């Protein structure tokens, strides 16, 4: 099947071309068939590759043609099919296909339907290029391409709004990241004479550990990853990107594009293993991001914002995995996260759809009656992300926690705390949306309805995977061998730093116990607070007796929860979101933008329009140049 | 320095070497001076008030004498400059007329032909029509 692997990215590209040229003449049905069909076809090919890779590990390079020949450097347009890229392709095309199907229902009223599918296909194409590229340059093409599509798709509904500072922020942050990436590429050209994986990695192995050049390259690459994968300090664009249609948030800002940074670091694991310093940086930054974003998520009221911050937090987990050299755990979490986060986003989309566009969870509540399928699948997603066994998130998060335990106790403890917070904000979200009383307008209540099949079927499929996806990476204690670890081992096998910690049985049991001992009470507390209590406390006399029926004891816990946990955490979250996020990060980014604009406004004043001044500038320039050149020759 | 040798050679130059330049200066100044003096002396002098006016014949002069020229003057002058300067290419040809032979004649013919084409264009487009 590797012979036709080049078809995998080509098919979505064809879909883009047909839908792009056909819009708006092509009718919606045809556009949907083309859009979904092309991705499905790619997915089929990927599946066959996957089956093949199960028998014998793949490591196949497809040289399509010589792309660039600049002097000594040549870059061939080559695709790399190995187990790592296959698993990423599975995620991209598989989850991508489901989201395409979902979009049929979600976007059916939109006049830009065909255009939307064209953009989605283009995105899939670039994403596939990103994960299939056999060199950093090709990866960069995909990297820029997905950024462009993300930009187009965020702006999809912005027709009449002024182009806001938020978009500029997203833009500048991604530019900073890309700057790091492309500089790293040029450094690789300068050091290794190539950016092909099969040239760079063997050449890098010759360097000593903590060689400053490798550290520089890896750090620059990581800067790229920070921008794309929304890590501290370049993460604030991701919540802003939620302005796009929900399928876009699910596909780009949860399942695929934002994990590109993780993929990139995992792909260059050999480089990183030579640079433990960078790995330490990644671990620390990942931990802080995970904790930080989780704290902010606790107090958000926009359903998509909560999920966005949660994504940032989960990405932090993945980077911790990478930083602690358990690359397979990182990729495993990418996979499970793709399942449950896509599921959650799509569920959120279904809710928003049912609520006629309402996104504030304080105006929702009690939706589980009206939206049974959505509610049930959302619950599975919530259980998965909270790390409740046996759902997918538990196993992948467990692998990361184990790895961090062997790395540093502080990191481990912070991640444990983050896990608790994750459960807290996710169940808060779940209960506030689906339980309790409906708090929206009468009009919204009348229009509550379960979404059509094209929306619910993807939800069910994803829920299935979110439930069982974890068994791909069963930890040792459950007797099964860790499938994903072995599957990915050809890619990470050259990496000598990966520690085998098979003797972690105790840790594994501890984690299972912990999940049940800590997270379940948190769930219960959230249930108390958000499902049973009326959220926006509109205390009416009829309700009071109901509350008094709840025991005094429970009330006490609730208070404790309130004053002991919720209030301080809210305060902390507020501090972070106002002082750090808004003031420091956004301030710096916007500041960079405004400094440049200020420079621009000043520089244009030089252009006085006066020829005399222009001529004077020329003469001054000439004199300067002459002086410098002659001084260099020691004429004076 | 490439001019080193010349500089040392310059030591035995004398003022006499500048004689051609001096002579040229004398000629230039002398020509201007002579013409001015000569016209002054030779012209008949009848300095009545009416004679000093810009126009005679009883029409009173109005406004500034520095009126802009009609653009036609300008156009003609510009065209003159263009065609006039091209003559410099004839000079080296004339000097080497025999050595260049027929090839020279053909080349210059082509050159003049192109100029002539330009001239035809000018005439045809009406640039030289006075009205």
């Amino acid at each position: 099947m590797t012979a036709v692997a080049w078809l995998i990215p080509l098919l979505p590209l064809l879909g883009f071309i047909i839908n792009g040229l056909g819009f708006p003449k092509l009718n919606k049905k045809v556009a949907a068939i083309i859009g979904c069909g092309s991705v499905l076809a790619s997915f089929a090919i990927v599946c066959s590759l996957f089956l093949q890779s199960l028998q014998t590990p793949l490591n196949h390079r497809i040289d399509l043609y010589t792309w660039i020949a600049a002097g000594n450097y040549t870059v061939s347009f080559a695709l790399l099919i190995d187990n790592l890229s296959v698993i990423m392709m599975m995620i991209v095309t598989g989850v991508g296909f489901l989201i395409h199907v979902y979009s049929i229902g979600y976007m059916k009223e939109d006049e830009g339907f065909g255009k939307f599918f064209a953009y989605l296909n283009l995105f899939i194409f670039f994403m596939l290029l990103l994960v299939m590229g056999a060199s950093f340059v090709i990866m960069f093409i995909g990297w820029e391409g997905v950024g462009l599509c993300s930009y187009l798709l965020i702006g999809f509904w912005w027709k009449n709004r002024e182009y806001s500072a938020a978009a500029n922020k997203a833009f500048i942050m991604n530019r900073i990241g890309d700057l790091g990436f492309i500089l790293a590429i040029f450094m690789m050209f300068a050091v290794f004479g190539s950016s092909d994986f099969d040239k760079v990695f063997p050449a890098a192995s010759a360097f000593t550990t903590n060689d400053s050049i490798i550290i520089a390259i890896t750090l620059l690459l990581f800067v790229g990853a920070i921008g794309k994968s929304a890590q501290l300090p370049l993460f604030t664009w991701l919540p802003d990107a939620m302005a796009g249609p929900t399928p876009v948030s699910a596909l780009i800002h949860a399942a695929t594009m934002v994990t590109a940074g993780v993929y990139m670091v995992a792909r260059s694991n050999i480089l990183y293993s030579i640079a433990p310093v960078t790995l330490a940086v990644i671990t620390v930054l990942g931990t802080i991001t995970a904790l930080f974003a989780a704290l902010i998520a606790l107090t958000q009221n926009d359903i998509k914002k909560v999920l966005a911050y949660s994504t940032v937090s989960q990405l932090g987990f993945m980077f911790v995995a990478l930083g602690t050299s358990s690359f397979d755990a990182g990729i495993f979490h990418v996979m499970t996260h793709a399942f449950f986060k896509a599921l959650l986003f799509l569920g959120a989309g279904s809710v928003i759809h049912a609520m006629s566009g309402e996104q504030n969870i304080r105006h929702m509540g009690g939706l589980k009656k009206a939206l049974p399928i959505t509610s049930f699948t959302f619950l599975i997603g919530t259980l998965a992300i909270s790390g409740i066994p046996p759902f997918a998130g538990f196993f992948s998060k467990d692998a990361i926690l184990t790895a961090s335990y062997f790395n540093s106790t502080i990191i481990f403890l912070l991640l444990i705390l983050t896990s608790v917070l994750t459960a807290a904000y996710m169940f808060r979200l779940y209960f506030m949306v689906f339980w309790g009383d409906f708090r929206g307008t009468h009009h919204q209540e009348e229009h509550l309805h379960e979404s059509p099949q094209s929306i619910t079927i993807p939800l069910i499929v994803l829920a299935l995977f979110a439930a069982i996806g974890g068994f791909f990476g069963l930890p040792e204690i459950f007797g099964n061998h860790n499938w994903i670890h072995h599957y990915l081992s050809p890619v990470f096998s050259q990496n000598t730093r990966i520690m085998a910690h098979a003797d972690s049985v105790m840790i594994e049991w501890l984690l299972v116990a912990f999940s049940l001992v800590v997270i379940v009470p948190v769930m219960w507390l959230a249930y108390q607070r958000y499902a049973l209590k009326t959220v926006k406390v509109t205390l009416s006399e009829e309700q009071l007796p109901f509350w008094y029926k709840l025991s005094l004891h429970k009330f006490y816990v609730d208070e404790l929860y309130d004053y002991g946990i919720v209030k301080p955490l809210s305060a902390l979250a507020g501090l972070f979101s106002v002082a750090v996020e808004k003031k420091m990060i956004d301030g710096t980014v916007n500041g960079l933008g405004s400094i440049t604009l200020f420079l621009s406004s000043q520089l244009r004043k030089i252009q006085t329009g006066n020829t005399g001044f222009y001529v004077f500038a020329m003469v001054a320039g000439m004199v300067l140049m002459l002086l410098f050149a002659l001084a260099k020759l020691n004429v004076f | 320095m490439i001019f080193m040798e010349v500089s040392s050679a310059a030591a035995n130059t004398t003022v006499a070497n500048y004689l051609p330049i001096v002579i040229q200066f004398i000629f230039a100044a002398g020509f201007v001076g002579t013409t001015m003096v000569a016209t002054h002396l030779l012209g008949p002098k009848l300095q009545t008030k009416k004679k000093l006016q810009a126009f005679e014949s009883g029409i009173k002069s109005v406004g500034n004498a520095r009126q802009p020229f009609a653009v036609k003057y300008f156009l003609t002058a510009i065209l003159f400059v263009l065609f006039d300067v091209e003559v410099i290419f004839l000079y080296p040809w004339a000097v080497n007329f025999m050595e260049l032979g027929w090839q020279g004649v053909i080349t210059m013919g082509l050159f003049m032909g192109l100029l002539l084409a330009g001239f035809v264009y000018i005439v045809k487009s009406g640039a030289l029509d006075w009205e």
Partner: protein
Amino acid sequence: MIPQIFQTVPIEHFVYLSAVLFVIGVVGVLTRSNAIIIFMSVELMLNAVNLLLVSFSSYHQDPAGQIFVFFIMAVAAAEVAVGLAIITMIYRNTHSVDINDMSRLKG
């Protein structure tokens, strides 16, 4: 073809003279605001170059420099023709040839 006697004049003197003329031209461009006078200053710069070229031509005993001068003169004439035409056009529209009035385009 070049009088021998000129070759005994040190080449530096020619260089200095034309450099001075060139600088006068540059200063003229810098300081004057009348478009025509600026144009004349540019012509002065070109003629300084012409002088430099013929003196080098004489120094190197190489006629190429003089040929170059012919071309400069011809091109300068063409430039004058175009330049004066443009200045005339502007004068017709604005009744001014002051370049300080010409700053509508800026920023």
